[in-house]
């Protein structure tokens, strides 16, 4: 396709190579479409570009910590749990990637091929109809244009390829999937699980379903991946491909088709809309290193730049037909931003099970699916929250010095266990929670800065209070002591579950995308990352982005064949 290439023409363009962009690339190229993937960050090749992956603990300069200079330069990133000495090269630095905050918002971004799929927490819980019918039942946002039955086969499809471990728990609100064997709970988590099962109706403690290969199958061997080795060093990039990332899985798969062109350091400025043709024809790209502008053309465009950056690209895509941003006839683009409320943390102590320990390092945690307001409204706040749970053994070394301290540090048994619970609360999308462009202020690539105006509300405060009460009570009746609750007061965004702004819906008056993730007003542009989310539910969202992406590509390809696009 030399001549074609010289004209920068492709069948499809994908903006972004993170978790959903990687899926778009895989699906499009497998269907035979010549596909250009544009990534604003640097190239990161699986295995080759994981510089810290095999470092021993004593080979790190600062035992994992970030230097003071780096913290000063990156005050936002420094608040992210995963921004460490061995992973800092995978984050977009605060200085070079500015944005504006009318209200505080921690925008955490990956800066490479693979995006945040190298950095994610890898938990992959399915949504259920309790989630998809939520807005309609409880009267917020707009009705989702899809139901569980529409996405269920696509969940199965992406789970089988990505490799999802989990237990078939048979819980209404958290449908089972195509699971590889589950990871184990440790004894204190198991104790809490048994306690909750015995004493609380419709409340469940399970091992989180997560994107790790726990049993080899030919499909993983074909991807060049093997089973998780329980290093729990995922943020470095996994030399085994034990967890799912674009780098280890979808991108090399797409590359093997011969249909993929991957362009790193390619910052998308905007989508080009042709008024005469009545559709998008391509994208305008700024080279991150040279600032040179180039245009690329394709029949269909998938926008997977990451939830908020996708809003930025569309808001910056101006044409006579769309003076407020691509597809933005109703003025709702960039509105109804939502996220997950992660402010609540609880720690507690359990002084039993002293004869037990763990072996290996599990790269995931236990999980309680939402139990509030599931079957009917039962509290004074809307919706509910999931709880992440992680237990670990602890030793009390504070009073020890010298040889006794050395002996304490050598012990394999524990003085007790601690458990840490984290709130994962659904937030209600509101028109007042917005991102917009500040057209007076550009970044160094000439792109207007994204401005955040996103905040918590009373519903979030009431839910936080309920989380503290309910989880503390379950821990207390379960024999836990020293129960401490903490409101981190963290800004929205640090959950890294930001969503919305380009929401799906049935009605073009009140939504941007239809049920196929297609812009109502510009049918050859699809948005399948977090920007498309109508509501947030409580589950970690990436699995849903993957399923929506595969489903949308399938539809786009059929429409393309019918010459409808």
């Amino acid at each position, binding site marked *: 396709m030399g001549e074609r290439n010289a004209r920068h023409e492709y069948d499809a363009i994908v903006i972004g190579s993170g978790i959903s962009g990687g899926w778009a690339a895989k699906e499009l190229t497998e269907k035979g479409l010549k596909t250009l993937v544009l990534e604003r960050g640097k190239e990161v090749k699986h295995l080759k570009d994981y510089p810290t992956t*095999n470092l*021993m*603990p*004593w*080979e*790190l*300069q*600062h*035992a994992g*910590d*970030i*230097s*003071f*200079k780096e913290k000063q330069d990156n005050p936002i990133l420094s608040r992210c749990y995963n921004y460490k000495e061995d992973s800092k090269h995978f984050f977009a630095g605060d200085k070079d990637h500015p944005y504006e905050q009318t209200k505080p918002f921690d925008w955490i971004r990956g800066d490479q091929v693979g995006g945040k799929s190298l950095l994610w927490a890898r938990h992959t819980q399915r949504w259920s109809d309790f989630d998809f019918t939520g807005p309609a039942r409880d009267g917020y946002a707009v009705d989702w244009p899809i139901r569980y039955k529409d996405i269920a086969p696509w969940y199965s499809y992406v789970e089988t390829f990505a490799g999802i471990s989990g237990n078939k728990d048979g819980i209404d609100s958290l449908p089972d999937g195509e699971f590889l064997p589950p*990871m*184990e*709970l*440790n*004894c204190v*988590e*198991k104790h809490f699980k048994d306690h909750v099962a015995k004493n609380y109706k419709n409340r469940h403690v399970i091992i989180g379903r997560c994107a790790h290969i726990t049993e080899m199958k030919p499909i993983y061997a074909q991807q060049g991946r093997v089973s998780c*080795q*329980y*290093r729990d*060093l995922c943020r470095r990039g996994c030399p085994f491909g034990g967890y799912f990332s674009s780098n280890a899985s979808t991108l090399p798969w797409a590359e093997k088709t011969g249909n993929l062109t991957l362009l790193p350091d390619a910052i998308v400025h905007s989508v080009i809309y042709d008024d005469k043709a009545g559709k998008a024809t391509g994208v305008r790209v700024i080279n991150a290193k040279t600032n040179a502008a180039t245009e690329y053309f394709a029949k269909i465009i998938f926008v997977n730049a990451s939830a908020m950056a996708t809003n930025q690209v569309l808001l910056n895509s101006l044409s006579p037909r769309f003076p407020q941003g691509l597809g933005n006839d109703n003025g709702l683009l960039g509105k109804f931003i939502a996220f997950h409320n992660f402010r609540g943390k609880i720690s507690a102590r359990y002084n039993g099970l*002293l*004869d*037990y*320990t*763990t*072996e*290996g*390092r*599990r790269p995931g945690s236990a999980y309680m699916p939402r139990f509030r307001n599931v079957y009917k409204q039962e509290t004074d706040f809307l919706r509910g929250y999931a709880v992440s749970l992680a237990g670990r053994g602890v030793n009390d*070394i*504070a*009073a020890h*010095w*010298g*040889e006794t*301290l*050395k*002996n304490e*540090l*050598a*012990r*394999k*048994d524990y003085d007790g266990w601690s458990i840490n619970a984290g709130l994962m609360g659904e937030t209600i999308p509101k028109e007042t929670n917005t991102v917009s462009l500040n057209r007076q202020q550009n970044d160094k690539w000439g792109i207007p800065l994204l401005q955040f105006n996103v905040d918590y509300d009373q519903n979030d405060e009431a839910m936080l209070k309920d989380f503290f009460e309910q989880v503390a009570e379950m821990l207390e009746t379960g024999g836990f002591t020293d129960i401490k609750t903490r409101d981190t007061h963290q800004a929205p965004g640090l959950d890294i579950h930001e969503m919305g702004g380009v929401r799906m819906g049935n009605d073009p008056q009140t939504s941007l995308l239809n049920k196929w993730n297609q812009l109502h007003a510009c049918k050859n542009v699809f948005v399948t990352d977090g920007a498309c989310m109508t509501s947030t539910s409580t589950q970690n969202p990436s699995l849903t982005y993957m399923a929506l992406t595969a489903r949308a590509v399938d539809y786009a390809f059929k429409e393309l064949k019918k010459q409808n696009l």
Partner: protein
Amino acid sequence: MKRREAIRYLFITGSAVWLFPACGSSSENASQVLSISELDLVTDIAETVIPSTGTPGAKELGIQHFIHKMISDCRSAAYQKDFIAGLHAFKDHIKKNTGNNWAALTTEDRQRALNGIVLKNGGNKTVQNCVKEIRELTINGYKSSEYYLKIQDYKLVPGHFYGCVKVKKNIV
């Protein structure tokens, strides 16, 4: 030291050069904030927290260089100033509280004195913060050291996770 641990130690100490975090860069003294005498005192305190007892202690493992690196690279200038002030007030504080010079104290007396500073929360806040920091970094550096992790049979690639394993009673 128990026999089995000793045998293990002998077995592992073939090379006798232990690596610790930051050890690759201890020559970059230009950016390091402690004077030689201040570093000596840090070394002394670290060695009190984790002394050589037939198995290597903090000094032998070079933990003082790790502490120095962490204070130099990962703390603010204001924090460094307080930390150094804490070091300078330390010996007077010891003298006032024990009636003896730091240099004259036995290891046990030193441990008791440090324990008083860290756990009783009385006295000079600057000294307290300084000693707490040294203790914490000593433990962190020790637990990240090649020596400790080999003794503990650390595996970069465990290959499995078992959530509930009956504990084997300790060898020490």
